[in-house]
């Protein structure tokens, strides 16, 4: 592989996973991420690693659980309807403290919906999605380089917290082809003494999410909740552009962040002081920096391809004091820079 190359978004996720030492990939075809699956089908055997196309997304997530329980870095990729099927499996992994990476290349819903890109799974990703009290670090790439880098980061964070991590992209980003720097391969993977490797020379390892004595369950959950608290405190990531003097702050992630950047540049040409706060982690969400900007008197434009999901996190950060405008698209239609600029213009 050359040091810099052109690559599609979905392919970058696949190559990022390989660089990060992903040892087992299980997936099921669903548009718009079939190229990711197909790429892994070819590449994983080349790297002497496990690939299997499964009978469903249900089987895929449970195979990810099995491989991860066996101590392998393991991942699956899917799109929104398949992601819905995987919620139970993800809940099991969160409850069993099993690391894994799940890439959701979002498409428009609800239901069968549209194969066009969307950001309508935001709540599903950041408010659990499956049953029970758990939280997943959710990384939101907005370039093909991000697709590669954040996938590598996802494996690192998954192992760090023994918890599944989501890479949340959209169908458009999956197809975009951009120039990408190929990062260095991860050489040493962390040791996993808790893994299922055969009880030779050690007491048996048990992986489960349940206590035989129900009275023991709250204490177990408390430990996991404390872990989530550390996770949420320590892993906030975001990118700020031109925020120093901004009167209006755009909040956008994924491919919408790219449209937002164009809208921001357009606004600046019109002498409107616009900045962009791009969450890299939508969980943990960058509440504090937004609250600080609100304290400075900024107005906000939340831009997303959904009926209005991320905007609620902006509202939590900002409160009632400052104006928040939502500009959005839905149904698998991209949100354009022009539409975002119009929203800025109305607010200015």
């Amino acid at each position, binding site marked *: 592989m050359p040091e810099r190359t052109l690559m599609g978004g979905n392919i970058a996720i696949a190559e990022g996973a390989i660089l990060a030492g992903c040892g087992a990939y299980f997936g099921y075809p669903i548009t718009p991420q079939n190229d990711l699956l197909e790429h892994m089908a070819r590449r994983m055997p080349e790297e002497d690693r496990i690939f299997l196309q*499964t009978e469903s997304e249900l089987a895929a997530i449970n195979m990810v659980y099995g491989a991860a329980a066996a101590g392998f870095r393991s991942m699956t990729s899917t799109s929104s309807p398949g992601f819905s099927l995987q919620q139970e499996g993800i809940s099991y992994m969160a409850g069993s403290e099993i690391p894994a990476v799940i890439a959701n290349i979002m498409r428009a819903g609800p239901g069968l919906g549209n194969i066009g890109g969307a950001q309508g799974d935001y709540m599903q990703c950041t408010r659990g999605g499956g049953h029970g009290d758990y939280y997943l670090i959710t990384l939101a790439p907005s370039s093909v380089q991000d697709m590669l880098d954040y996938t590598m980061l996802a494996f690192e964070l998954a192992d760090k917290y023994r918890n599944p991590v989501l890479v949340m992209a959209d169908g458009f980003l999956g197809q975009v082809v951009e120039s990408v720097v190929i990062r260095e391969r991860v050489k040493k993977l962390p040791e996993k003494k808790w893994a299922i490797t055969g009880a030779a020379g050690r007491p048996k390892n048990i992986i489960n999410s349940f206590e035989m004595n129900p009275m023991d369950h709250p204490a177990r959950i408390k430990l996991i909740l404390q872990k989530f608290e550390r996770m949420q405190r320590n892993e906030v990531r975001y990118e700020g552009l031109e925020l120093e003097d901004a009167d209006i702050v755009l909040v956008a992630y994924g491919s919408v962040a790219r449209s937002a950047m164009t809208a921001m540049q357009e606004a600046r040409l019109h002498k409107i002081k616009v900045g962009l706060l791009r969450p890299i982690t939508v969980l943990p969400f960058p509440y504090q920096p937004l609250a600080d900007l609100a304290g400075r008197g900024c107005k906000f434009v939340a831009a997303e391809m959904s009926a209005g999901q991320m905007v609620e996190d902006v509202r939590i950060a900002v409160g009632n004091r400052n104006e928040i405008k939502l500009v959005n698209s839905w149904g698998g239609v991209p949100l354009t820079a022009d539409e975002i600029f119009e929203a800025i213009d109305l607010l200015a």
Partner: protein
Amino acid sequence: MDGFEDMIFGRPEIMEDRPTHFCPGCGHGITQRLIGEVLDELDLQERAVCVASIGCTVTAYAYFKVDGLESAHGRAPAVATAIKRCRPELVPFTLQGDGDLASIGTTEIVHAAARGEKITVIFANNATYGMTGGQLAPTTLIGMYSASTPHGRTVEQSGYPIRMSEMLATLDGPSYITRVSLHNPANVRKAKKAIELAFRAQLAGLGLSFVEVLSMCPINWKVEPVKARQWMADNMIPQFPLGEFKCIPEVEALKKEVKG
């Protein structure tokens, strides 16, 4: 052990020294003990992986001194598949009931079998959903009481019971499929031989090995424990005939190694 030189029957080494949670007359205790004996005899303590499932087998890993894990309802064959493909030296086995394998998990068992995954599946068929209180299972007999068919299962409402062994035997992937029963000591002996052969098939690197064990659930059948075994023989065997449904030549060749 001093004073125990004459002991010819005891808890298998691989089983934990703890009481089980099963009801009086339940078949699971027998099945798990047979598995324990086989794991001891084949010296698999360091390699076996118990993939528990949802139902009365949910705590199976608590009874064996081997690595073990939970699996979501129906998905044990998928979990075992991943473990075996990642770590082929391990010997994963699943322990599943009627709901887990024949209802919610039909997709996973069919595809694991079709792919010829080198795992061992022990299917406890007691024609009911034990853990949750005796609701209809895909294996419940026509006319049989269940908590969700209180007037007895009817064809009009719930169709026909599923014969999993026969169905899976139509696939090319599995190497060994058999149905055994626990209704009397002679059949318990046969069940043990079947379980041993199934594990030997996995050790020989052959395709999916599957043992369906007709098992008692007196509590939910509303039959007295001492009568349950005969009830099972009288009522379940006609619907679920005992015998081998698939045994490839390589597994046939392993039979001479089986002690039983």
